[in-house]
């Protein structure tokens, strides 16, 4: 057997280190990271722990726009191979979006950039410092150089990509920021191709603060595969145009309509992707929220789904414009480099203001249901003009600024809409997705313990199973008992109760870490339940268990290393725990996590269930205990860190605990 981390297959073998302040570029070996962290999000967490210095100022966190912040763009051993959805790329840094403190987090994006980076000879790029003037990084088959980007600064993300492709090679793949990133909008994206974005964590603004406009990469090399025949047969067997198991997969019609892919090597039929055609005959791809915003059929108002009422909180329905208008807004957002998700919270909040008779904020008129106003508003966000300058801080921070100026219930509504540490509500069972008990409880534990909206990477690992409950509660319960026994070792894992859900939450998080490190897409992996041919197929089945070993077999075929499931879980736990330690370093603790409780006191939109503050605290007790974290701060205990091979992390956390107590 090949020793872990020494395989010639899978990994490119090198990491590119770019210091923008000094204008220097260096390289280092990937192997030491691959051994303990595989790649992607795990590798990036190790680099962040070792290299983003903690603030020298005791009790203060380092700012996301500090030149010492580091952006890591990382691929994994499956990137660039035939492994379906392996084309994804991970980006991490201290985020300007997290609230109320700055901490380290991650975003992932699909597309073709990660594979091209590997074909150019690199597994990852780490960027530190700050350039004197706008630059872009050009990577060409093992060589990298920084180039003047003064002619690109100010361009939108699409034009930037096209210009660099024209300059370097039409086949180059480009990551770029738009005006929103340049102007330090806290939810600015790093864009790629038409629709791919590292969107949620505001990394576009981190690029902007470093004056990094783009990275263009061209590679003519390859990724070596240890067992080509095995990989080919694995993909043929499992990968070809199977509808991803849940999330609308029961809808027979529409499942096989023509859909775009969002990452290289994705051979799945993914129901969160769609094409729409513009009036002038262009085909526009949309993925996830982008697809959702475009999904206007007839007079259907998709944005109406934002309506929620319960527990004294009312979120108004948003307003969908026509298809052409929505495509224009969506493309505009991508080109400006804004997170598309802003629409789902900002439009309803502005509508709520209007409903309260407020038609101006700080003297700026608001008309959120007028498409021309909204289009102008998006530009104002990106350029930080007028009202846009205030809301470019994110709804959550803007509420702190507007407190006292607007009625208290509107301020509270804004805070609720971005309740998750500054991230828009998502799969939490209230404002957005229909998530009955116990799924929102699993979400709640993940929200409390992670650095960002955590549910975005755990669609398949548990949360999309909620769809089956909504279809047929009793059938789903019967089927889930079998799935639960096989997956988590006990039948009650998905029973609609509040008890004993930590094992599912932790498993989902570990799987999320693993698929972000290989990487794969969370809409397709892990395959907790098998794909269904149609509704009848699902209804006629008792055992709907999927194949949870596809990832392991593909990893073996690519790298030649026969990891056991236990080894992979250990790697995922190590990486996740390291991320938790990074949160501890930034000052996150149980006290802050308890502040999420009020959101879960609102009744669930589909079944009315809720949890009070004491109950929420009980969820934290259960979760922290299951993770081996202490109950006071929610930080990993010494013994857990030692078992995971992180004694140096234990030393630092011990020191920080002592400081914490002396405050």
């Amino acid at each position, binding site marked *: 057997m090949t020793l872990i981390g020494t395989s010639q297959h899978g990994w490119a073998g090198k990491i590119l280190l770019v210091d923008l302040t000094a204008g220097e570029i260096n390289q280092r070996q990937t192997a030491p990271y691959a051994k303990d962290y595989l790649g992607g999000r795990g590798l990036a967490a190790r680099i962040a722990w070792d290299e983003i210095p903690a603030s020298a100022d005791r009790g203060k966190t380092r700012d996301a726009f500090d030149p010492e912040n580091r952006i890591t763009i990382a691929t994994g051993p499956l990137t*660039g*191979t*035939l492994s*379906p959805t392996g*084309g994804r790329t991970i980006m991490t840094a201290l985020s300007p979006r997290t609230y109320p403190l700055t901490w380290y987090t991650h975003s992932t994006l699909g597309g*073709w950039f990660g*594979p091209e980076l590997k*074909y150019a000879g690199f597994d990852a790029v780490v960027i530190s410092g700050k350039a004197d003037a706008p630059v872009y990084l050009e990577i060409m088959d093992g060589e990298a150089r920084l180039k003047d980007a003064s002619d690109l600064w100010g361009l939108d993300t*699409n034009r930037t*990509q*096209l210009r660099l*492709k024209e300059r370097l090679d*039409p*086949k180059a793949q480009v990551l770029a920021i738009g005006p929103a990133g340049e102007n330090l909008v806290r939810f600015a994206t790093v864009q790629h*191709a*038409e629709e791919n974005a590292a969107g949620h964590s505001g990394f576009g603004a981190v690029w902007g603060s470093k004056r990094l406009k783009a990275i263009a990469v061209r590679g*003519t*090399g*390859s*990724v*070596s*595969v240890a067992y*080509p025949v095995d*990989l*080919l047969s694995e*993909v*043929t067997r499992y*990968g*070809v*145009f199977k509808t991803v198991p849940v999330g609308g997969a029961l809808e027979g019609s529409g499942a096989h309509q*023509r*859909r*775009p*892919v969002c990452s*290289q*090597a*994705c*051979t*799945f*039929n993914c129901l969160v992707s769609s094409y729409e055609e513009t009036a002038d005959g*262009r*085909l*526009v*791809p949309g993925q996830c929220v982008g697809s959702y915003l475009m999904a206007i059929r007839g007079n259907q108002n998709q944005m109406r789904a934002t309506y929620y009422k319960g527990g004294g909180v009312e979120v108004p329905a948003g307003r969908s414009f026509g298809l052409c208008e929505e495509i224009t807004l969506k493309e505009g957002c991508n080109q400006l480099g804004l997170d598309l998700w802003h629409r789902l919270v900002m439009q309803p909040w502005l509508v709520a203001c209007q409903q309260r008779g407020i038609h101006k904020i700080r003297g700026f008129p608001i008309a959120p249901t007028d498409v021309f106003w909204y289009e102008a508003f998006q530009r104002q966000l990106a350029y930080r003009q007028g009202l846009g300058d205030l809301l470019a801080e994110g709804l959550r921070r803007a509420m702190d600024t507007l407190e006292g100026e607007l009625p208290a219930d509107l301020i509270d509504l804004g805070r609720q809409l971005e309740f998750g540490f500054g991230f828009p509500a998502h799969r939490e069972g209230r404002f957005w997705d229909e998530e009955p008990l116990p799924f929102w409880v699993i979400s709640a534990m993940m929200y409390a313990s992670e650095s960002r909206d955590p549910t975005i990477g755990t669609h398949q690992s548990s949360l999309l199973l909620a769809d089956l409950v909504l279809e047929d509660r009793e059938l789903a319960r019967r089927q889930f008992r079998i799935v639960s026994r096989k997956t988590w070792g006990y039948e009650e894992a998905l029973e609609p109760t509040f008890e004993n859900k930590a094992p599912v939450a932790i498993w989902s998080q570990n799987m999320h870490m693993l698929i972000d490190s290989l990487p794969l897409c969370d809409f397709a992996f892990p395959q907790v339940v098998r794909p269904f041919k149609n509704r009848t197929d699902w209804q006629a089945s008792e055992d709907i268990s999927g194949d949870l070993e596809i990832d392991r077999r593909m990893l073996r075929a690519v790298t030649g290393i026969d990891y056991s499931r236990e080894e992979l879980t250990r790697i995922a736990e190590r990486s996740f725990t390291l991320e938790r330690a990074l949160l501890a370093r930034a000052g996150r603790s149980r006290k802050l996590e308890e502040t999420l409780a009020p959101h879960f006191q609102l009744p669930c939109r589909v079944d009315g269930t809720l949890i009070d503050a004491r109950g929420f605290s009980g969820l934290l007790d259960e979760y922290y205990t299951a993770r081996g974290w202490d109950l006071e701060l929610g930080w990993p205990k010494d013994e857990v860190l030692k078992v995971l091979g992180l004694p140096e992390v234990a030393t630092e956390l011990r020191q920080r605990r002592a400081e914490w107590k002396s405050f």
Partner: protein
Amino acid sequence: MLDARHILIEADLCRDCQACTLACSLFHHGECSLELARLRVNKDLAQHKVEINLCRQCDYPDCIAACPNAALRYDEHGRVRLFEEECLQCGACAGACRFHAIFYNANLGMYLKCDLCAGRPGGPACTELCPVGALTLIMEEG
């Protein structure tokens, strides 16, 4: 006996997942690469249009006519093949192909052309994997 004769290309259905090129390079070279493949899928980002360059198994192949060393010829199954060991690397075939479906790989120093996965029991890997029917294997009496 039925024999594989050509691959029908419907580029309008393609969504640029590159499973075909990756499977091609994996079968022929044991590596995943867009440059080692015997076909190319190119997306025009400005137009969101995809172009696929792949051998059409022409009835009157320009490549065969152009080759000065007869390294391009029909095999026993009637497939137009490039016999790489006989190739003089002059590039005449690539220049002659109106479908731009013969590729020079500088890393290997050789020309690459689709051989319909000669020797693969299941037939061409690309048509087996293409999830959207942009590449379809057309069988004819051989």
